[in-house]
């Protein structure tokens, strides 16, 4: 620490200014990228780091990518120490040097004041292709990283403002789609936006003052997080969850086991007893799993805590190499981000009794599909990720119902449905239904969020449908007397009247035109005894058709009359049994 006098007002202003910069970088990405995964689903994060890689601030559109940037930044700072110059740009995706997923490629730009390296700006987004055996990267047959992706350990692609064309060509010669180059240029552009803004901020207050106030900001944020942790009773809490089907061995199961130790103002998540890694692609990396841990815990604390180094300092995460959450080299790991939902389940189960008012019941897990083929109307290829179909409900919590149709916990409502009419413009499919799924929510004093049903008619012959995800074996769990949500399901009803149910990690080729695609995304778990839910609210949900008369009666003990209005006498009788 220097002996600059700390101006507490400036600390507050600095925190706000850093957030404005990462937000601006995010807008730049959203507006200039091509791949719908980036510009529609916003599967990217932008951030600023200090010279050593400590997080200054981030804008986390998709939180699961978010907590690998700081470790990778520190790795690059170390690897290139003495070899970093103004105007440099570095790329990185390598999961064995702290990357979270092969497709998530990061750009880093060092920021200088004069000759001094003072910070880094970075952007990481899910790229539409990253080489490997299968277009798009999801290869359920992969057993090693090279079958999944091109590895990009930290490399310098621009030095002192000059493109290293040979390096650039080597990378993009190994990636199928032209738009990946353009989207990586967009990442660099966003880093430049961050660089310009941060430099003008530092010049305004002076470097020495900036550094001192940054440290104070970290300390202030750390205090906020420590206060949240202190509010949890000391002790060690254990939780467990199951990962179903590794993509290779039908019926296979793996256990995630976490021991959470709260010691005053420090918290440790220890996964040492978690099962060993799989021989397929259902494996996590250290940073994908640590991100899952952090984002789950952040949903249990004050949501207004700034996201900087101070926030993560009181948190330790132990994940031994060789487990399913931290697979050893050279494992396949593309499915790793999607181990977040079961990881979150284990954490929630562990902490539910310690902080019952801060946890949710279980969330619906991701089950996602994408379709590709030739659009006969345009004689052109199309690809669609069916975002609208995958979004089930969140878990209920003390004082409030779950959120309907929100989607997996690792995005928490950050990924949006494609618009129905744009879906029919951009694919040859015809949407028949996308509505809340009756009785999908876990029952409870507070019910889980509703799931949805999606049905469309496939509009092209020889369509390929790729499926990845979970939630088809075990439903979202309820808490404290609350009920379970419903399961995920995908079915293909072929024109010849046969029905095919794909596995949760599958590739179905040759789907004919006229096939009916049906998907159900399940509801979230309920919280508390359903018999305590206000009867008028239950009757209202019957009237609105999201709850059946039978479930209202059997599970909630609520009777309605023929006009679907609350039958008070009948309800009293049911509830007094």
């Amino acid at each position, binding site marked *: 620490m220097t002996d600059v006098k700390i101006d507490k007002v400036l600390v507050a202003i600095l925190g706000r200014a850093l957030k404005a910069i990462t937000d601006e970088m995010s807008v730049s990405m959203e507006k200039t990228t091509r791949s719908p995964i980036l*510009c529609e689903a916003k599967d990217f994060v932008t951030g600023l780091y200090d010279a050593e890689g400590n997080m200054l601030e981030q804008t986390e559109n998709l939180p699961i990518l978010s907590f690998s940037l700081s470790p990778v930044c520190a790795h690059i700072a170390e690897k290139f120490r003495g070899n970093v110059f103004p105007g440099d740009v570095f790329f990185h995706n390598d999961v064995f040097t702290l990357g979270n997923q092969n497709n998530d490629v990061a750009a880093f730009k060092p920021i200088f004041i004069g000759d001094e390296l003072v910070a880094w700006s970075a952007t990481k987004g899910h790229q539409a292709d990253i080489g490997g055996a299968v277009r798009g990267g999801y290869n359920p047959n992969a057993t090693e990283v090279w079958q999944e992706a091109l590895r990009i350990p930290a490399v310098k692609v621009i030095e002192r403002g000059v493109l290293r064309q040979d390096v650039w060509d080597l990378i993009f010669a190994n990636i199928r789609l032209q738009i990946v180059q353009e989207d990586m240029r967009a990442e660099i552009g966003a880093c430049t936006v961050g660089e310009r803004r941060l430099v003008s901020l530092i010049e305004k207050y002076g470097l020495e003052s900036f550094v001192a106030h940054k440290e104070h900001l970290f300390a202030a944020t750390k205090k906020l997080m420590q206060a949240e942790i202190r509010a949890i009773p000391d002790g060690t809490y254990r939780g467990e969850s199951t990962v179903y089907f590794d993509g290779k061995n039908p019926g296979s199961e793996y256990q995630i086991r976490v021991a959470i130790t709260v010691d005053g103002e420090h918290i440790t998540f220890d996964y040492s007893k978690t099962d060993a890694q799989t021989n397929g692609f259902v494996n996590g990396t250290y940073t994908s799993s640590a991100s899952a841990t952090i984002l789950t815990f952040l949903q249990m604390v004050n949501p207004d805590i700034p996201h900087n180094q101070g926030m993560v300092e009181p948190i330790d995460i132990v994940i031994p190499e060789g487990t399913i959450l931290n697979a050893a080299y050279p494992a396949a790991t593309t499915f790793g981000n999607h181990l977040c939902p079961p990881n979150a389940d284990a954490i929630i189960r562990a902490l539910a009794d310690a902080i019952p008012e801060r946890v949710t019941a279980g969330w619906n897990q991701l089950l996602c599909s994408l379709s590709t083929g030739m659009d006969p109307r345009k004689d052109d290829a199309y690809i669609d990720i069916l975002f609208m179909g995958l979004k089930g409900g969140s878990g209920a919590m003390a004082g409030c119902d779950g959120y309907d149709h929100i989607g997996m916990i690792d995005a*928490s409502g950050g990924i949006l449905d494609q618009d129905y009419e744009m879906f029919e413009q951009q694919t040859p499919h015809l949407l028949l239904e996308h509505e809340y799924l009756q009785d999908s929510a876990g029952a409870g004093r507070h019910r889980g969020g509703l799931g949805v049903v999606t049905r469309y008619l496939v509009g092209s012959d020889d369509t390929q449908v790729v499926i990845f995800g979970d939630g088809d074996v075990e439903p979202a769990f309820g808490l404290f007397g609350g009920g379970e949500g419903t399961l995920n399901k995908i079915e293909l009803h072929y024109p010849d009247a046969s029905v095919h149910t794909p596995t949760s990690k599958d590739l179905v080729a040759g789907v004919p035109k006229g096939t009916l695609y049906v998907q159900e995304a399940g509801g979230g778990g309920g919280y508390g005894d359903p018999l305590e839910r206000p009867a008028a609210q239950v009757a209202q949900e019957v009237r609105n058709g999201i709850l059946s008369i039978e479930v209202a009666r059997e599970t909630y003990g609520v009777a309605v009359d023929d006009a679907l209005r609350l039958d008070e006498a009948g309800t009293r009788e049911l509830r007094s049994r």
Partner: protein
Amino acid sequence: MSFRIGIDVGGTFTDLFLWSSAGAVETYKTLSTPEDPSVGVLNGLRRIAEAHDMELEDLAAQIETIVHGTTVTTNATLTRNGAKTGLLTTAGVRDALEMRRGIREKQYDNRYQNVTPLVPRYLRRGVTGRLDHAGAELTPLSGDDLRAALRLFADVGVEAVAVCFMNSFGNGEHERAAAELVRAEMPEAFLSVSSEVLPTVRFYNRVSTTVLNAYVGPILHGYLSSLTEKLAAAGFAGVLLVMQSNGGVALPEVTRLRPATTLLSGPAGGPRAAAAYTRAQGTEDCIVVDMGGTSFDASLVRGGEAAMNNEGDVDRLRLALPMLAITTIGAGGGSIGWTDESGLLHMGPQSAGALPGPACYGLGGERPTCTDANVVLGYLDPEDFAGGEMTLLTEQARESIRGQIAEPLGLDVDAAAAGMFRVINANMAHGVRDITVKVGLDPREFPMVVAGGAGALHACMIANELEMPRLLVPPTASVLCAAGMLLSDLQHDYVRSYVSRLADIDLDALRGLVTEMIGEGDGQLALEGVPDERIERQVALDLRYLKQYHEVTVAVPMDAIQSGDRATIAESFHAEHNRLYGYDLAGGGMGIELINVRLRAIGRTEKPDLPELEAGPAAPDAARKGSRRAYAPETARFVDMPVFDGHALAAGNRFGGPALIERTDTTILVTESFTAEIDRHGSCLLTRRGS
């Protein structure tokens, strides 16, 4: 003598701006009457009559034009007090309205709830019947489904019906058939049909907009009826015009057809007035900021026209109609200061409002607000606030800041107040950054026009934060929106979807769409009495590169449409894309795709000239009131600061900061590095030295 009056009904105050044929302008403020805002409007007119020593009837008879901005539709939406509404939609998609594409705006906050939909699920009725992506019928419309839905609507007392079917943007026949049946079965119901309200592709945008339109329809209808009756009873025989969110005005009969066009009309007048004042400085580009009691709005004017968005949100509900591009943040005079558990200072977004108000009002407010800090810093004269109508209690301001800010931060009261001032200025600067840098503009290139009662105290420091060299505080700063209403044109926006690659466009079809919209616009302007020579028609296309997801709206010359000049259209698009995002693909052979065709029909109105002041000497001595102890923020110390009477300043007066300029409706803080100069319209121009 005849008068024109602009009336802006806000949540707390109704602002009135009067322009007489003699060239004088006057401003008035009266308390709003939220239960029936037309009462407040008439109260305001009575105030004007009293000031002119005449009866209301005499005044009313001399009023040529009243332009009226209202928040009745906005408030009905925010408080969910709109009409009981039913939705007829395509079977299978009735939940799109409530799902809002599945967004949760706060990702880490599990207590953050979805918004209550304007139509409950049991009144959202799916109807069999289907068009394909190109508008061709796949399944005929089911009359049985429709009749069953309408029976339910009638049973439960539905007052407004929205109709929105899949793919109806290209073929409105199913919707027209449904609408006819609604008219026959429920003749009293207000009807909102998507293919008339917003015939564009994107189902969620259309259904949400159509429902909003239905939900506020009966409210606007009732309010305008009440207002026109009261005005007629008072003897008003002039023209009443209503301000719309697109910055234009329209006759009440016209706004009743698309009531949702009034949903964000409140601040829409400001930019036009701002441009009128900056014109005296030789520019029609500016940033407009408006700081009131609870919020701070920032908007942008280029070439005299307000920057617009083609869609936005009202209470997290999508409204896809052209509206002023505006950023609103929770920063105002009533913003409450607080410290968090880690000892950091925050201002807002919570506000003490008018009641209980800031601690210094002595109305029971105990939380320290921005206004309390401004009293402690010496910026507001406790004995002479709001033109002497109110006395501020300095001790109460100091006490609230001492207990809740100074002690937790370990500062003295003065330093704590200065900290509050800095934090709220930084927050507002981010709002200005939002409307400029995020769309690729440099705020330093624009003068900033400062409006609202509280804005002028903070403006210099916001400008410092963003290195903006020039500020302008108009003489009508506190009622700028009301003034702008008298400077607005009649304006109507239309849009049609036509999804096609630019190269494959059927030019006759494109021209047909434009002609159709021109017909509609001309018809409405004719109804409003605009002669043909005052009508202007602007065409724009929503274009994107193939496989992009976001369109860019590009103005295109009418000639290019008529002659089918694809090259000019493409060039305009490449240029606009480059301006916005820093690159284009003009040379890359990447195809361009058309999504929407837009037409804006403008009926130019005759606008009054801004009045001019007598010229005076450079020295402002005649207006010098004295001095008082106040905080000079750039050098962070208290000084004996000169105070000027803003109403006594003459054109050409010029002096350096630090200084305070007091007017009855606002106080201007000229900080150390700024020079103030009064221009011929009475605007106070503030220029940063050395810039």
